[in-house]
């Protein structure tokens, strides 16, 4: 067994060094396209690091959102930049030494904090394990995210919606040049879309007992929508106006309604244990829809016009 553990240690070491090297390269890169590609590679290695840390839930979210969708968002933003901006230096060189000094101070402070952590922190895992039975689900991560600390997830959904509002307030629909989509991309999307929908449904359902849940399922569903948009399906024409807004607010609204009801009854987001499982499933379904549509709308980058508005 000794040899195997040595190999695993070597792998972990390479993984850690690879992450640091990629982070350095992507921050130093003057070429934005290269930086985005390196960022996606960083996200994939990061997902692997989370797997090594025994956190498959975070690994799934990192791979789907951190590497996949954020990468697509960055690429979409890059495509919207006028081409001269891409070759210009990113920051003015004069402020650089000050920035580096500040970063060094932050790094030193973080190092001190990590160093002064107690050797063995008790943590909350025992508490969570004791109360898991009343949470309505069997996966402790889902129990924390949607029951014990549900308001964190509620606020996360709000942040996502605020981000979209920000994009919509900036974005004007541009006349996109329609390029013909080849048969290869069309076939690829036809194969992948049903599969992605199936995977999203599985992740949503599995979230109660195993790694998965609304954010992962929503990201996978959003990936299907991004693919459809890239392949020239007029999703932005099909889903507009009230229908789009209803899907965007479904998650946050269900959450807020439930928060209000539980607040009247007992305490904020404290579900009665006998209904907790059903309530969490309801929340997850609504949140998955909203997350998927919000992420796809962020990728689109502008508010789709309704039929009544002049084109």
């Amino acid at each position, binding site marked *: 067994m000794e040899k195997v553990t040595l190999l695993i240690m070597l792998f972990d070491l390479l993984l850690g060094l690879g992450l640091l090297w990629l982070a350095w390269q992507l921050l130093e890169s003057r070429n934005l396209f290269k930086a985005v590609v390196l960022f996606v590679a960083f996200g994939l290695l990061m997902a692997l690091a989370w797997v090594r840390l025994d956190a498959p839930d975070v690994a799934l979210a990192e791979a789907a959102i951190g590497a996949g969708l954020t990468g697509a968002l960055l690429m979409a933003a890059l495509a919207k930049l006028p081409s001269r901006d891409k070759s210009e230096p990113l920051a003015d060189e004069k402020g650089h030494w000050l920035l580096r000094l500040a970063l060094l101070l932050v790094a030193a402070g973080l190092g001190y904090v990590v160093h002064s952590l107690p050797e063995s922190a008790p943590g909350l895992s025992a508490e969570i394990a004791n109360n898991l039975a009343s949470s309505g689900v069997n996966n402790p991560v889902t129990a924390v995210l949607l029951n014990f600390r549900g308001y964190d997830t509620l606020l996360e959904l709000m942040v996502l919606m605020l981000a979209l509002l920000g994009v919509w307030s900036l974005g004007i629909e541009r006349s996109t040049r329609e390029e013909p989509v*080849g048969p*290869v*991309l069309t*076939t*690829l999307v036809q*194969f*992948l879309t049903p*599969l992605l929908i199936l995977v999203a449904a599985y992740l949503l359902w599995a979230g109660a007992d195993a790694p998965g849940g609304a954010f992962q399922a929503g990201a996978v569903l959003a990936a299907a929508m991004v693919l459809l948009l890239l392949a020239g399906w007029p999703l932005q024409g099909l889903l507009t106006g009230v229908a789009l807004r209803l899907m965007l607010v479904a998650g946050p609204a269900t959450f807020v309604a439930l928060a209000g009801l539980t607040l009247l009854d007992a305490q904020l987001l404290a579900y009665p244990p006998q209904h907790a499982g059903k309530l969490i499933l309801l929340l997850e379904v609504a949140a998955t829809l909203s997350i998927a549509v919000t992420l796809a709308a962020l990728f689109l980058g502008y508010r789709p016009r309704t039929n009544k508005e002049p084109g």
Partner: protein
Amino acid sequence: MSASDYLSVALLITGAVFFLAGTVGLLRFPDLYTRLHALTKADNVGLGLMIAGLALQAESWAVVGKLLLIWGLVLLAGAGVAHLIASGALKQGVRPWKK
């Protein structure tokens, strides 16, 4: 070690050789099109051999199915994306390498 273990090792090593060759090709080949060629060889055949090697060690048929599904998805994505990159480059006027 049983016979299937030896076969697994042989398949995994052959797969690793394909990945190594693909990586060398990606770094050393002269233009985008030949590099894509090297890269997709590694992804398709190298991963296929690795999947075959791992499938021999799988505990159940369900795991074998999942492994094959991963290979199928990588094949689909690799072939599709390589085509998209190559046709995009051709449209932008990137000329294939000539000796």
